[in-house]
Structures are given as structure tokens and as C-alpha cells.
């Protein structure tokens, strides 16, 4: 079953204290890889069969109106098999 996925991230200029907390926890556990961390949200919206253009358009609209707050966040919508 295909999924329409919406990923929501805080805009780069908005402070992300959760991401910062994760970034400072990583080296304490020996993971020295991260220069910085940003934390976001992922929504998986299941549809019957292949998503149609109109279904994707509906999710785009929902992402703009409900799933994200355009004042502080950006979103991307894509289809995953």
C-alpha cells in the first residue's frame, strides 16, 4: 500500500532547542558525527492503491493548513511505496 509522506521541519532561523539537546547528547554517547541536529515531524498517510494527483493535492493542502504552521515550519510532501 502506498503512503503519502509529509515531513515538517522548523525553519532554519527558528531556534530548535530539542535538536540542540540531541546534538549535545550525541557526543556524550560517543557519536562524534554531528555538527548540528534539527528535529522534525513525519506523517505517513496511507491511501488505497496508487495515490492520485487529487489525493496528493489534498495532502499538500492539509500540510499547509493543519500539519505545519507556516509561520515557523516548512513541509515537503512525497509518495513512498
Amino acid at each position, binding site marked *: 500500500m502506498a503512503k503519502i509522506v509529509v515531513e515538517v521541519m*522548523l525553519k532554519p*532561523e*527558528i*531556534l530548535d*532547542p*530539542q535538536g540542540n*539537546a540531541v546534538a549535545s547528547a550525541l557526543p556524550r554517547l560517543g557519536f562524534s558525527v554531528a555538527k548540528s541536529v534539527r528535529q522534525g515531524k513525519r506523517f505517513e498517510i496511507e491511501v488505497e492503491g496508487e495515490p492520485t494527483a487529487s489525493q496528493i493535492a489534498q495532502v499538500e493542502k492539509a500540510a499547509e493548513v*493543519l*500539519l505545519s*504552521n507556516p*509561520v*515557523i515550519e516548512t513541509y515537503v510532501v512525497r509518495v513512498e511505496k
Partner: protein
Amino acid sequence: MRVGVITFPGTLDDRDAARAVNRSGAQAVLLWHGDTDLKKVDAVILPGGFSYGDYLRAGAISRFSPVMNSVIEAAGEGMPVLGICNGFQVLCESHLLPGALTRNSDLHFLCRDQEIEITNNMTPWTTTFSLKERIVIPLKNGEGSFQCDDKTLAQLEDEGRVVARYVGENPNGSRNLIAGISNERGNVVGLMPHPEHAIDPLTGPTAQGLGFFTSILNSMVK
């Protein structure tokens, strides 16, 4: 003078807000999130709490509740609306106020008595305060950091729409120490700290929060 107090699922401070309204001399009218009827109130308060469990984002789900359609319509016609804490978050999500409230910069839930300065005493919710009057009322929130883009911030400052500012160290990372703002018309005010918890020295740090409730009574009676 009838002041509506809305209860959403997860609202905490509706009883205190209603008590503060009654203490000021106005009549509190309890409103339910699922109703569209505002019961002929003259003003509305959106109290604090965790409406809809803060799911998705604080205030994001409440914004679409039936009562909010009526509040948005009434606010457009000039009805005074005060959103406290979670109510402030709902007003931002409803686009009645600009900006957004995000996680406190230090990630801690704050609960303390906070000094704030009244920086606009022309709104119907702040008329009984003098300009730059400093009051102490409780501040309790996890997501109280006021954020907006530079253009919006400049607009809020230029138009005198910052209603209250934190005094001293920034408690939550809010831009320009903003504790409360108003819409362009001034009838809609959002406030992060809690005046309804400071109406009686027996139960609050001061009785200075009462000024918000006597203000609305005075503005409406005039």
C-alpha cells in the same frame, strides 16, 4: 457585562478565569468548544491548559473546534478576546495574532512568579494599568517562546502592539522579551503569563492580575 470563558478538552484554567471575571464584577459565562453559540457574551477569554493534549502543536487542533469559528467571526467584528497561555497559542494558530509560540529555549517547563511590564494600556484588556506599570503574576508553560519573522517583529514594535514584556532575564527565549501582543485593531490580546492566578494574595503572588479583568469591564461599560 457577560464574559465568555471557553473550555476545550484539556483546558486547565477555565475555573480560575471564570472566578477572576466574577471577582472583577462581570459575569462569567462558560462556553464549550463543541458549541458555536457564544451565548450573547460581550467578550471572550481562552484560558490556559493543554487543549487536545497539545497534539500536533499547542493550539493547532483547538483552532478548528466549532466555537473557534464563532470566536474568529466575533473578533473580526471587534469583540474583545483574551487568550492566556494555551489560549495565546490558539489565537496564533487561528491567525488572529501573528507569530507562534515555540518550546522554551531551555526545554524546561517553567512555573514561577514573573515580573512583567505593561507596554500598551490602550487595549480593552489593559486600560486599568498605567503605562510601564510592573506587575507580578505566575508564568507556567513549556512552549512560551514567542517567535516571528523580523518584519512582523518590527511591525509589532512600530505599531505599539507589544502589550507586555518580561522584566529581567528572558525566561523562555521570546523575541524582544515579548510576554503579550495584540492584533492590529487592539481587541484581540494574547498573554503568556497568567493574570487569572493572581487575583487574590491568598492564592496568588499578588492581586495585580485582576487588572486585566477590571479593564474589560471598564472598557465595555464606558
